[in-house]
């Protein structure tokens, strides 16, 4: 009991002593309970303020990011893009510097009346001249607005003057339904739809270059639909209509009628991993019915301007003209083109094949002013000279990437860029066989009995051309490519005895000399 009293007394004493000491400490300036709470509150506020400021800074940064355009400059593009990606403008370009070297025998059309370069030889030809040239020098501006409206304008400066290669609007309402309007590549030739920087050889084949249309003015509905495990691309267009291989340069069509184009292309296994994943096949067709009346206005132009009568001229791989219609011939009636087409890519191997057939109604005319000018007489049709001419062409192009990259319809991405001692870029070998055969009736008169008075002169224009082209592509990187092609073309017809005109029986016709050419190209594309 006494012990407990003693312990209690000590505790009370200690408490009183400590309390007095604490009070004395507080009075001497030490922190009271209240001031400690205040300090705590102040520190708490400071921490909250700092956190909030950080939060606001982050919000401001996020907002700034949303409103700040994105500038992209990479090896494949230069673009300005809105922060949400729905609006952008992209700049692209391509320059192709070519050299064309011809061996003896590569010629232009025989017996041309306008001798463009030097005198004709004893056979009525002049040798094609070797030359450097800028094949394409294009600046491409592509814009997208609201994520679905594309506009593209491409200006080509290669000809010394600026010309519009493309100018169109593409409204992408849905992947399955898009509308394109303006000047664009007709959805017809598969090889033509391949980009200019992606084609395997320096020039396209007879199918794309000679028979099927190039760029045209009009409107097209297009899109892609689900098809098996892959997709089906379609396009239906209504365009002005250009002659074979033609690239419309103005808004004026030949007779005011329109041309229908249709294209279906299936890649049914594109989403597979099977060996068929790189298979694509399809078909295209065009149709127009052109009255020749308005073409009469163009028959008295120079022979070099042969396409203005609604009819084409055809060129070789080496880009020499080997066929043109008679200046008396005009497109007069229907023109139908059909073209089955396919490609197949597996590993480093690529194959592209295409066939085209055109049925062209033509008539002969008389009158008009002579080529040298002057008053001349009214141009009129020669009765009963209408004929449907059937021409056809095909090609098979095989390519193989020696350095192991994957082949595709689009460009090649080297697995390593060229750098001395470090990488050699991508190397590709390409081979193509391509031929074009014109209707035999083209070279006979309307009755089919004489080689004079025909739709085309067999001693000046060849009836058939067969080209074998071999090429090597060196992709130094994704943007730079060097290419060399060797092309040899053989002809049926297209020449004669000296400079003598063709006789009615066609007995003085000869084959045009073979064309052998080496085409080289240095290409920069971004």
């Amino acid at each position, binding site marked *: 009991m006494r012990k407990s009293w003693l312990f209690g007394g000590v505790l009370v004493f200690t408490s009183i002593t400590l309390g007095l000491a604490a009070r004395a400490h507080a009075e001497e300036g030490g922190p009271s309970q209240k001031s400690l709470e205040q300090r705590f509150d102040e520190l708490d*506020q400071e921490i*909250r*303020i700092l*956190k*909030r*400021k950080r*939060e*606001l800074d982050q919000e*401001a940064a996020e907002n700034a990011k949303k409103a700040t355009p994105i500038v992209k400059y990479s090896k494949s593009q230069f673009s300005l893009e809105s922060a949400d990606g729905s609006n952008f403008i992209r700049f692209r370009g391509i320059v192709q510097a070519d050299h064309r070297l011809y061996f003896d025998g590569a010629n232009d059309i025989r017996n041309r009346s306008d001798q463009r370069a030097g005198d004709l030889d004893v056979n009525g030809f002049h040798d094609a001249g070797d030359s450097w040239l800028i094949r394409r020098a294009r600046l491409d501006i592509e814009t997208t607005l609201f994520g679905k409206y594309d506009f593209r304008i491409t200006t080509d400066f290669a000809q010394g003057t600026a010309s519009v290669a493309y100018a169109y609007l593409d409204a992408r*309402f849905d992947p399955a*339904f898009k*509308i394109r309007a303006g000047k664009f590549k007709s959805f017809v030739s598969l090889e033509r739809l391949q980009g200019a920087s992606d084609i395997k050889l320096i020039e396209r084949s007879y199918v794309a270059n000679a028979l099927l249309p190039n760029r045209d003015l009009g409107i097209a*509905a297009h899109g892609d639909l689900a098809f098996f495990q892959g997709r089906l691309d379609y396009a239906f267009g*209504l365009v002005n209509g250009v002659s074979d291989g033609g690239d419309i340069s103005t808004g004026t069509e030949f007779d*005011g*009628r*329109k041309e229908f184009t249709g294209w279906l292309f299936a890649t049914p296994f594109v989403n597979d991993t099977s060996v068929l994943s790189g298979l694509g096949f399809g078909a295209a067709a065009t149709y127009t019915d052109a009255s020749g009346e308005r073409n009469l206005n163009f028959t008295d132009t120079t022979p070099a301007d042969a396409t203005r009568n609604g009819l084409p001229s055809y060129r070789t791989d080496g880009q020499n003209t080997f066929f043109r219609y008679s200046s008396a011939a005009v497109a007069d009636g229907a023109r139908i083109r059909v073209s089955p087409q396919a490609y197949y890519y597996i590993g480093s191997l690529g194959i592209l094949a295409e066939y085209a057939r055109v049925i062209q109604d033509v008539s002969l005319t008389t009158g008009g002013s002579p080529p040298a000018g002057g008053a001349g007489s009214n141009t009129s049709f020669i009765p009963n000279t209408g004929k449907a001419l059937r021409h056809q062409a095909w090609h098979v192009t095989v390519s193989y990437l020696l350095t192991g990259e994957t082949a595709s319809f689009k460009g090649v991405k080297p697995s390593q860029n060229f750098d001395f001692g470090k990488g050699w870029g991508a190397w590709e070998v390409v081979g193509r066989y391509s031929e074009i055969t014109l209707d035999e009736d083209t070279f006979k008169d309307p009755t089919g009995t004489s080689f004079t008075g025909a739709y085309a002169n067999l001693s000046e224009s060849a009836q058939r051309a067969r080209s074998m082209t071999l090429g090597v592509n060196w992709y130094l990187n994704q943007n730079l490519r060097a290419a060399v092609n060797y092309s040899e073309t053989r002809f049926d017809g297209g020449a004669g005895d000296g400079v003598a005109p063709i006789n009615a029986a066609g007995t003085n016709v000869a084959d045009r000399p073979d064309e052998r050419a080496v085409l080289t190209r240095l290409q920069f594309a971004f």
Partner: protein
Amino acid sequence: MKTLRTMLITLGALLIAAHPLVVHAEDITLLNVSYDPTRELYQEFNAAFAKHWQKEKGQTVVVKQSHGGSGKQSRAVIDGLEADVVTLALAYDIDAISEKAKLIPANWQSRLPQNSSPYTSTIVFLVRKGNPKGIKDWEDLVKPGVAIIPANPKTSGAARWAYLSAWGYALKKYDNDETKAKDFIGRFYANVPVFDTGARGATTTFIERGIGDVLVGWENEAYLALKEFGAGKFEIITPSISILAEPTVTLVDKVAKKKGTQPVAQAYLEYLYSEEGQDIAGKHFYRPRSEAALAKYANQFSKVSLFTIDEIAGGWQKAQQRHFADGGVFDEIYKPK
């Protein structure tokens, strides 16, 4: 002729293909571009107007809302946001649309009653429960150690009204001595620890982040906060005097004309002055213009002596130039910490 027929057939085919993409023609969609604190007000008002229009005209109206800082919203319209109507915090922001984008005639404010201001508000204080710092009037906000939360007057309409309220108080207190008023405003903003860009952000800072002693902002926003977060946590302090804030509304003529929505957009704004529109405004703590609605909601608003912007700054254009433009009084007195 054959060509024409062909083209018509093709066009018809394209139209048929595009048919699902065509919007139902009888639905009318309006876009109301407004400022931060009006979200709840216009949610209810839009529904009421849609019902009214359906009954009157038999047409379905969908009113879309866009909210943000008043100045920012004004810039968005100038930059191309296609608003049929704008309902912004201050007339100056609508003047900017008229001047810079020419979408609205210069006399827009005279086209609707009450200077196109169908409801008003004022600036009050929201303090924490028990009013620990003893805030009663503007004078208390400039005392050392008081942390006040207004938004940034450079970016927020509410903040400009708050600034001008404090400025008006100071002018009255110091007999229009602008030097002393500037000093007062300087001390006022020296007590701001965090600047939000909009009124709703300032509310978040004060209420949700627990920063500061006083939220200085819209009366309706303060009442809404009280309603949402509970009267047990906060108190509203009404100062002795404050500014008569007049948020304004107008049709964006060129946009509405282009979209063909002019009649319904105009009716939408006029309906703000209807008894139902005024009642909805009062319900959301805006001071209605109509006597009946004002009387109905009189008890929810404290008595306060109100002055106008014309009295203390000569209108919005002058106020903007003098106080908020680059190099103005605000730039003079406020130095970011």
